[in-house]
């Protein structure tokens, strides 16, 4: 349990009440606090590198997508296909499916594609955001060779009933509406969140993909084009109900439904007919989770069941003379997953604790293209058992052994062990040296196995072997808190699956890579206050070397020993948040080194994803008008109007602004 240092009114409204984090459950959590000192020496977390994203950050980015927050405030690299478009994560240089994502304990990675599109997750639905780096993710599930990202909602037992509304208006006809209603008492609570986000997304850019030839001089120029066919719409509902019949148990039911409709821009170089090559994607998600937690003298018991259903429709339309708009691709996929967890943990208050978990999951998917009639259906049963034992020695050494055994469709997956250790160097000082060694597996996704055409049922699981070590330090001094952590990791991943185009004219996945991912993660955070002035400064830096060490395909293959595509060697970000009375100001900075787009790391002038540095600022004021809490904030993104690209030939927006208005009763 976090230790409350001081309590303050949060700048702006408490759309996201700040919270304390710790290993104990939220049933004992306490109300709003602005600075909490997390325990960094906990035997249940020994050897694990975790990031709990500060509630101030969640609050500041409430109108954005999780992809924005992760890339701006954590060491997770986000490969972004454009504003509002597909955004996938690379954690410690690994591929998108190596990051396991959960919402209130249930996994939300697509069982078909294995990954998560973080542009589809609004920060607004997040109360707690926890990142487990590398093998730390084994505490929850296997497969997170890069790590895991865990989204949680939690009850605000002591909050009054309230209604909050947030309106954002921004460049490129961007409108964001968020409504929240919380009611209840200390026994039963309900919280409802509704949101609606739309953007025409029609920013302009100099189009280097198209040439205009002067008929007289022959000179070539580039047009200024609009980012057409890039609009996005997203709306959804998050409903939470919590019931606390007694002081030692709590029941919750949560539903999150979302509809997202996006047009996918044509290549910027496309000069075909206007009404051809029209691409559209619709995602419909329903997620439901119910859990019961019981806290007895013997320990804690948790039972959880969840459902995740997704329908993803993708189509491409072309104008056919005489026939009108005809679909060339009309692909519909359905994914349904059931999750069940039973866990028991005990001894957390003593020197020796233990934990046992059984997960039983079932996935069923189907995909069909009504134009080509191609498609597949598939299903998968997963049984996972985990047993952990943790021991603390005189508040100086913590040991953590987690053993995991899984069966997939009745077949045993190799044993997955984790061993972690913390050493407190100086008694009474939060200076901890930590490290772990672990194995991990990531199963091929159902698309990898069965996609038509190309699926490869003979694929082997990806196998990771990771070692990491680091040092964490924190010091609190009369209203100021310094937190910092440095980690080094080294991860061998065998049987890495990549999809490669084949001479057959389609893509096929193969276990052809061996990847050595090693790197450094460093983060530092300083926060505190002087009378009416408060501040929070944070920075992260990541050095990520993710190198292909697979056998060359042929003598001329130059990919051996080279950095994987789209992974920057250096990435970092900084955030400064200052508050003074009713006023607040935030400065956000992100930087990425060059990303290569070829496996041989050739860089050409024609195809460069050169380094870029993003600067965003925001400033606002919160004030009270009778019974209303109000807040107004102006944000300027890409302050210096810097041109940059996250994928080739897809320019990102220049300087743009957003106005955010909040009201709460």
């Amino acid at each position, binding site marked *: 349990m976090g230790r409350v240092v001081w309590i303050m009114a949060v700048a702006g409204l408490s759309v996201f009440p700040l919270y304390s984090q710790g290993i104990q459950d939220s049933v004992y959590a306490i109300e709003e606090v602005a600075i909490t000192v997390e325990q960094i020496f906990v035997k249940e977390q020994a050897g694990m590198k975790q990031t709990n994203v500060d509630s101030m950050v969640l609050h500041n980015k409430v109108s954005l997508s999780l992809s924005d927050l992760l890339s701006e405030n954590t060491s997770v690299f986000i490969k972004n296909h454009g504003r509002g478009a597909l955004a996938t994560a690379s954690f410690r240089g690994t591929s998108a499916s190596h990051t396991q994502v959960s919402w209130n304990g249930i996994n939300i990675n697509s069982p078909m594609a294995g990954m998560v599109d973080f542009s589809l997750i609004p920060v607004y639905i997040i109360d707690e955001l926890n990142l487990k780096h590398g093998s730390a993710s084994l505490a929850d599930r296997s497969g997170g060779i890069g790590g895991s990202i865990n989204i949680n909602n939690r009850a605000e037992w002591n909050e009054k009933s309230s209604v909050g509304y947030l309106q954002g208006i921004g460049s490129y006809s961007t409108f964001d509406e968020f409504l929240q209603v919380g009611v209840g008492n200390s026994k039963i609570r309900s919280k409802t969140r509704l949101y609606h986000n739309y953007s025409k997304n029609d920013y302009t850019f100099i189009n280097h993909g198209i040439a205009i030839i002067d008929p007289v001089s022959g000179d070539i120029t*580039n047009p200024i084009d609009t980012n057409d066919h890039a609009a996005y719409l997203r709306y959804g509902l998050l409903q939470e109900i919590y019931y606390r019949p007694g002081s030692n148990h709590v029941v919750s039911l949560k539903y999150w439904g979302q509809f997202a409709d996006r047009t996918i821009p044509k290549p910027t170089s496309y000069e075909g007919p206007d009404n051809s090559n029209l691409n559209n994607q619709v995602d419909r998600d329903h997620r439901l989770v119910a859990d019961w937690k019981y806290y007895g003298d013997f320990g804690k018991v948790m039972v959880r069941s969840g459902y995740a259903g997704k329908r993803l429709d993708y189509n491409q339309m072309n104008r056919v003379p005489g026939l009108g708009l005809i679909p060339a691709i009309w692909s519909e996929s359905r994914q349904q997953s059931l999750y069940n967890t039973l866990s028991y943990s005990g001894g957390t208050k003593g020197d020796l604790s233990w934990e046992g978990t059984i997960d039983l999951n079932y996935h069923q998917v189907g995909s069909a293209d009504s134009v*080509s009639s191609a498609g597949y259906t598939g299903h998968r049963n997963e049984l996972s058992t985990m047993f952990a034992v943790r021991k603390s020695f005189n508040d100086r050494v913590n040991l953590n052994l987690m053993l995991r055994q899984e069966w997939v469709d009745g077949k045993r997956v190799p044993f997955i062990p984790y061993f972690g250790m913390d050493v407190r160097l100086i008694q009474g000082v939060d200076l901890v040296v930590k490290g772990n060694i672990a194995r991990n597996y990531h199963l091929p996704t159902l698309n990898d196995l069965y996609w038509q055409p190309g699926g490869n049922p003979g694929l082997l699981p990806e196998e990771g072997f990771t070692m990491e070590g680091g040092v964490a330090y924190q010091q609190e001094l009369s209203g100021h808190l310094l937190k910092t952590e440095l980690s080094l990791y080294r991860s061998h991943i065998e049987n890495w699956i990549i999809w490669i185009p084949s001479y057959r004219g389609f893509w096929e996945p193969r276990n052809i890579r061996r990847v050595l991912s090693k790197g450094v993660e460093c983060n530092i955070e300083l926060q505190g206050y002087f009378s009416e002035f408060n501040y929070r400064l944070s920075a992260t830096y990541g050095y990520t070397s993710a190198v292909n060490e697979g056998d060359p395909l042929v003598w001329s293959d130059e990919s051996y020993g080279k950095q994987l595509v789209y992974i920057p060697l250096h990435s970092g970000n900084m955030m400064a948040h200052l508050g003074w009375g009713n006023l607040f100001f935030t400065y956000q900075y992100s930087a990425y080194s060059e990303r290569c787009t070829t496996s041989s790391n050739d860089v050409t002038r024609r195809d460069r994803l050169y380094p870029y540095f993003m600067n965003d600022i925001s400033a606002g004021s919160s004030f009270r008008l009778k019974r209303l809490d109000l807040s107004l904030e102006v944000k300027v993104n890409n302050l210096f109007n810097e041109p940059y690209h996250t994928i080739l030939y897809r320019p990102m927006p220049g300087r743009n602004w957003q106005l955010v208005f909040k009201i709460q009763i």
Partner: protein
Amino acid sequence: MKDDQLWDFERPVYDIPFNGIFVTNEGNFMYGNASLTYYDPETREVYDDVFFNTNAIPLGDVAHSMTIRDSLGYVVVNNSGRIYIFNTRTFEMKGKITGLTSPRYIHFISETKAYVTDLYARSIAVVNPATMEVTGAIPVSNSNSNFYQHSTEQMLQYDRFVYTNCWSYDNQVLVIDAETDRVVDSIEVLKQPNSMVLDRHQTLWVLCDGGVEGSPYGTEPPGLLKIGAGSTEAEIVHRFSSGEMPTELKINGGGDTLYFINGDVYRYAVNGATDPEVLIESPYEGTMVTGFYGLDVDPVSSEVYVADAIDFVQRGMVYRFTSEGVPVDTFRTGIAPGGFCFKPAVP
């Protein structure tokens, strides 16, 4: 770094009147990184990325094929919906034909008329190369089909008739009357005809890959077929085993020897004296799916050029062999080299 700096550079000036070879590098779908490599077989000099370096304009997304007409090169850029036209001596861009849905190949009928086949338009575009405009369309839609038929691919002309193969989920070769711009006939071949050549007897040879295993369209063993000059009947000459995937049917300048890729590079005499024989072995082992991706034969020297896309996300290689398969040279290309275009000396 700013885009402006990146795109403002000193461009080389070329003037190469000699014969040479262009390699179209497809690049990666949606990445816009197609490129054009030029190779001088005499000096063995390689000119990287000549279109971009000369014009400071990228070719676009998926350069599918190239055809030369007089001194001009026409590069069909599939997912950019356009054809770039450039001077094959100086590589200077001369114009473009736009408004094409998903173009694949261009075939010239006259100075003022050419056809452009298309994957998705269900029609063949009629263009005027002189004005660089689309002037009409030849519908090829098979509205009864479940499989988006017809897509059209390569074109060959015999007399006034243009033959085009319909590869994607299809088994037809369409016959178009180049005077009336109409489909006048269709010839059923095996599933998925992917490439065609005309031999010295004006016999049309068609290579069919038989479809993809597990495809709803079905599969059958691939085959090599021939259609006699002016005939509308196809005859199966050679049947491959199920699971093989022969592609890239080409012919030498003499029009008497066929070449194709089936893992390795094979050769086959049009007189059918022997079965197809391996001419060049692929360096890829086992069932590796990558490998030889493009193939062509120099119409004058009959030297064989094989393009290797390696993993498709790095610069590929071209291997040059004599007509008997003896290695002559190798050179690097751009990403995913798929097509060749032989340039005669430009006067």
